[in-house]
């Protein structure tokens, strides 16, 4: 999921009907694939923050950012990178409970920042918070233990220091 073609775009939007559709149309028209999209409230209840990760060539992305920024309901739209911001994502994994799985989880719990949320009906639900790369790595490992379901929130990001997101 994380390669040089993946971009993280942060969009500050006014809470108006249709704003999500307007943004989606800009991406869809240019066949830009959205990997994840997170909408969350901001300090000011008038606005929301959208964090979008998407794949495609940088030139098209440049056009997309400009065209999203141009929309009347969008206050600001810009790309961010990991060096100037903190990015996090949360994942929930459902696996078949087994002693091997439990041993594995115990061993890696601090390295991958994971915890077991539920152990009912011989299934385990594991929660992980981390960067997209960390989540990808853990997902690859946990697959061996019978991964049944997987849900990820998509990346959220905030700019470091004085710079606004």
């Amino acid at each position: 999921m994380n390669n040089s073609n993946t971009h993280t775009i942060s969009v500050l939007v006014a809470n108006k009907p249709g704003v999500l559709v307007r943004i989606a149309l800009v991406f869809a028209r240019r066949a830009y694939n959205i990997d994840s999209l997170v909408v969350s409230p901001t300090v000011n209840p008038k606005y929301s923050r959208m964090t979008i990760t998407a794949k495609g060539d940088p030139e098209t992305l440049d056009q997309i950012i400009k065209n999203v920024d141009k929309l009347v309901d969008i206050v600001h739209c810009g790309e961010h990178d990991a060096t100037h911001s903190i990015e996090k994502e949360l994942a929930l994994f459902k696996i078949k409970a087994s002693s091997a799985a439990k041993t594995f989880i115990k061993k890696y719990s601090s390295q991958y920042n994971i915890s077991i949320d539920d152990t009912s009906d011989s299934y385990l639900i594991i929660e992980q918070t981390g960067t997209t790369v960390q989540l990808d790595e853990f997902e690859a490992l946990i697959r061996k233990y019978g991964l049944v379901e997987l849900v990820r929130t998509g990346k959220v990001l905030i700019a470091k220091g004085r710079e606004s997101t």
Partner: protein
Amino acid sequence: MYFHLHVKIFMVIYKSLFMEEFMTKKISTTSLATPINGAQALIKCLENFGVEYIFGLSGGAAIPIFDALVGSKIKLILVRHEQGATHMADGYARATGKPGVVLVTSGPGATNTVTGILTAQMDSVPMIVLCGQTISPMLGKDAFQEADIFGITMPVVKHSYLVKETNAIPRVVKEAWHITQNGRPGPVLLDLPKDITSAPFTGSTLDPEMDIPGFKDTAKAKKADIIKMAKLFKGAKKPLLLVGHGAVIAKASDAVKKLAEKLNAPVTNTLLGKGCFPETHRLSMGMLGMHGTAYANKALINCDLILSIGSRWDDRINGNNKEFCVNAKKLHIDIDFAEINKIVKPDAWVVGDAKEILEELIKLVDPLDTKEWLKELDFYRKEYPLKYSNDKGLTAQLVIDTCYKVTKGKAIVTTDVGQHQMWAAQFYLSDRGNDWISSGGAGTMGYGFPSAIGAQFGRPKDLVVAIVGDGGFQMTLCELATAFINKLPVKVLIIDNKYLGMVRQWQELFFDNRLSGVDLEGNPDFVKLAEAYGIKAFHMSKVSECQDVMKQAMAYPGPCVIHAEVIKEDNVFPMVPAGKSAHHMIIEAPTEKLEKPTGST
């Protein structure tokens, strides 16, 4: 004595009238004396903005708004089809620079405006489209004449509103009025449920604060960007200025002229840039691009610097951007940041108002030595002039050229789309930006006649000529009734070749003359048709009668139709095949078969 008394009385009456107006104005912005509903608030706001006309067609969900127009200062122009209303508003806007206003009902009434909205969006035209809508509790429940016009039009509007609150109407209208004409203009749609327009307006003011924190007004151009651009002119031997619609909208005509004359640089224009720089000026190369003049395209191929002023380097000009002005420095002035780097990667660019930028740029550039360059272009101009022959019968070119001469180039010209549009662009030279009205980006057939009606409403004293094709005219001809009842002296010049000529040309040149879907067999008798509407009609089909008929028609005081039956099979040249660079321009009818074009149209 009596005289003085009269004057005094008059003064008193005048003062009291004035005071009353002053008082009501004050009242209208604080509290409203008589209760009004949402629709009345809407119309009052539009009146306050100085809207003169609303082009519309009524329907159930819009009745409250039509009701509010009874006794209003705004004149309702009842059209015969909603597409016509949008093109009228569009023509009005382009001819006057003021936003056009459209009012239609829900469902099909609203969807019939989509083509007109696209046309306005593609060509950056300020327009407000008011749509009636089913009552808000029925939204999304497939109510009678319900269409999600807010959703349907999202990709073709600058902005849109689904109004859910009666008291929000004044704010929404004010925002729409601001958005449609500031920055890069474009259409704004208001979807107005009937219960919202019928409910009492209980707000305190018709002039509230706007709430559009995301709307970016035109950015002030950065001085450093202008300085960087100015430096690139140094040493240029073959400069070329490319004027687009943006320069017309920015009213940059004088600034373009000053810059061109200071630099001694030739100027070419896009289809919609026509007139911004006078096409009769010694430095004008006329229109460039797919059907531009050979000399304009030669200038494009050979220039060492090109400055686009409010043109978006679209594919009619830049058939193949890999081969586009490879050896030239490319400079770009645009009001819309999203146009920078979209098609062409410029060596320098400035975002902002074209007029302001040019006024700064003029101060920073020095005259260039372009004697050799102008001599070279003069050679092309003499070698490859626009030409036509009268040997085979009456041609569209002769008809349009005659129209140009008879009207002394002073008419506002609107067009449809196709061959006649290109011939009109080639032969009806334009000296004023707002006098050329044509659907460029969208290429909307049926645009010419209604837009002429709109232009005539906006500029009642000017001569307005709609140059239309027999195909396009039949798409919106029902507006003959609108022209007739409003006694609009619009002249409709129908170039009738009994074909969808541009497609026929393509089929002849690129598809072995396999004609498909282009023969307009069954055209009506346009003279009788006009007369059926009570409109005067003229007819011509011979070279010898062209001038006399044209003179009579242009001198006719009311609306009239001129039916010009021209030779059926004629092609527009020069032609740059779609998808190719201007190097591949075909100047005259080719003798061998051509490859199929790679570009779309």
